[in-house]
């Protein structure tokens, strides 16, 4: 028995006071988590900005190709995964389990693709000599540290999301999870999406040659 279901519907047939926001606990909790996680990311990005401003020898190594192009492709992939997620939530709402599941898998696949592209990007950079405390261009080593930490945390969220999506997709088909769970996962996925919208310009575009 899933806890999310515990209060799947608001109002509870008059047994409970309605939530002032009229949303189930699962969603509410996810929104809270998103809020808290957003603060975490802003803290990291603040640190990144703080160090960037503080380093006179900050290096901006990203060439248009391959880095920026790759980044753009990743952005496109992640954005389209947002759309498929949306589709799956809509389908779930409308009660089309099969369709919802298909869209979930699509999102899952796109997420995985994003992760793969990201890891390839990482490998290229590491081969170039970048690292948490290494800078082949001789500039401030903070760049590598900040880059790998920020993108690493985001990548962690993406990978976690991919697994969550897979689990939900399997359970949703078998009726183990309901549309609320799909929506909750959706909230998370869109958040991961949104974070990238900050990470990409701040970490990639701002550090383009």
């Amino acid at each position, binding site marked *: *028995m899933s*806890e999310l*279901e*515990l*209060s*799947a*519907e*608001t109002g*509870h*047939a*008059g*047994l*409970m*006071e309605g*939530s*002032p*926001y009229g949303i*189930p*606990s699962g969603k*509410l*909790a996810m929104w*809270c*988590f998103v*809020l*808290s*996680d957003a*603060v*975490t990311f802003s*803290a*990291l990005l*603040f*640190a990144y900005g*703080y*160090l960037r401003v*503080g*380093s006179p*020898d900050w290096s901006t190594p990203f060439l248009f190709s391959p880095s920026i192009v790759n980044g753009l492709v990743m952005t496109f992939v992640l954005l389209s995964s947002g759309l498929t997620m949306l589709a799956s939530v809509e389908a779930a709402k409308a009660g089309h389990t099969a369709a919802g599941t298909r869209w979930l898998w699509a999102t899952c696949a796109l997420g995985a693709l994003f992760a793969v592209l990201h890891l390839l990007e990482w490998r290229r950079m590491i081969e170039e000599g970048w690292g*948490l*405390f290494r800078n082949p261009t001789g500039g*401030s*080593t*903070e760049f590598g*540290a900040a880059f790998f*930490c920020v993108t690493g*945390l985001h990548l962690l969220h993406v990978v976690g999301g991919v697994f969550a999506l897979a689990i939900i997709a399997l359970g949703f088909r078998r009726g183990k999870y309901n549309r609320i769970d799909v929506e909750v996962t959706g909230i998370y996925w869109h958040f991961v999406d949104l974070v990238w919208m900050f990470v990409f310009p701040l970490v990639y575009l701002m550090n383009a040659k």
Partner: protein
Amino acid sequence: MSEAAAHPAVHQHTAPTGFIRKYVFSVDHKVIGLQYYGLAIVAVVIGMALSWLMRLHLGWATLPIPGLEKLSPAGAPGNVMTPEYYLSLMTMHGTIMVFFVLTTAPFAGFGNYFLPIQVGAADMAFPRMNMMSFWVTFVAFLALMSAFFVPGGPPISGWTAYAPLSAVGQTSGPGEGWGQTMWAVSIAIFCVGQLLGSLNFIATTLDLRTRGMSLARLPLSTWAWFITSVIGLMAFAVLLPACILLILDRTAGTSFFLPSGLVFGDQMLPHSGGSPLLWQHLFWFFGHPEVYIAILPAIGIISHILPAFLRKPPLGPRVLVGCIASIGFLSYMVWGHHMFVSGMNPFSAILFSVPTLVITIPATIATLLWIGSVYGSRMQFTTAALFCLGFISVFTTGGLSGFFLAQPTIDTYLHATYFVVAHFHFVMAVAAIFGMFAGTYFWMPKMVGRMMNETLGKIHFWLTFVGVYCIFMPMHYIGLAGNVRRYAAFTDNFLVPLIPVHKFITIAALLTGAAQFLFLFNLIWTRFRGPKAADNPWGATSLEWSTTSPPPFDNFGGRQLVVHQEAYLYGVEGASADFIMQTSSETVEKP
């Protein structure tokens, strides 16, 4: 939809049988609450023992403390405490007390136990997540304790762990090895635990309130726990990445907090580009809200208990909620007042000083409301009530010294002196602990179904109340004299004359600490020998008193409570009794 939606307030899982599921890995918020409370008790005993050792050393620096060498051969050769060991004790005392006592007991402990009951729910919104939050916190505690035993000894950089001292590692001296790393790991884990807890509190308060329990009817304690969890949600979210960056600096060779050109033992370190101030910004952005995470639940608890013994409604409960909320809100804009002398732009000091001073307005209002509530009452002076009054007193005392430290000009002189120590111990530590005591004496009958011994309780109160003033009041005076804190011994010419005062404080601390064993004894005695408690021994109104003591597994025995009343209807004219339970449908025309 399943049964779930039909009767959400009723437990989804039947009461577990078998010790493990029932008492260890229990999903029952009451058991989890007790586990948190127990953890806090263990932690507070350890923390107090550490403070005893510290005080002894401050009074008599070269005094051998028998057996201390057994505890730490490196830290106390020949039973004489080394300065580095003093600093480790101080660091561990601060960390244990702030994180595992002040955050754990009044917030997670009582909150877990009573928040669902007070809103009329059968359990938290996410019982399993709730269980996880405790066990994660427990692991964090173990991680911290392990720092005592790892090579290199426990950390010495204080509970604020200022970089670079906390980030460069062994080379900066003893206590900066594995101990410091374990500290950072422990705090990072703790953040996760608190996050899970906060999510639960928020969801439960907003979604699981039983019928008729509108937000306006929530007890003040629930309000405080709710607001606290909102604060915690965002505060710990900043400490988490900060700790991760610190761990990376210590283990992965990054230099987030380490500038270039650091020289230890005539050797220059390879680090470059980092900023020690970055750590201070991240830490205090968490650190100041954390202070309120410690104190707000206590405020809620005593605001909830006081009316029950005043036998009259509290003065302006909604105003009080407003105060708590605004304190919580402001707590995010004032972190810089910890950094007045840190080398920030002097202009920002003024920016941070104003909101800090503004916080005193809601705090003052709250205090006046409590005092005003006492007016015109016929009070029942139970131990719980006495601790509430004590709380008002120490909170006032501690709050007022904040006026000094909030002003950069005065802080220039008083920063990092014992004046600061006195301030935060009064307003945060002692006040929060008083809240915890009040809660214990008030709620223990409900939690274990037995009454605590009032006589012991009152003795405990008098000794503690007088004791804390004897300990912390003198710290103001030596603070004014410029007595620097975090000194292992006082060898400076201008500090030597102050040592007698420290001896006095030490003696007071030992006695006050000893008095706490009365409390521990009382707890244990109550659990096993205490007289059975009635369902509503205090004649209180909120929902926790509408069920048996202790409550059944699903809190209300399958009943679906319906709330008809405000939270604190005491001494209502024309009512059948001198109080009206929230659940009673009795209607009295308001005078």
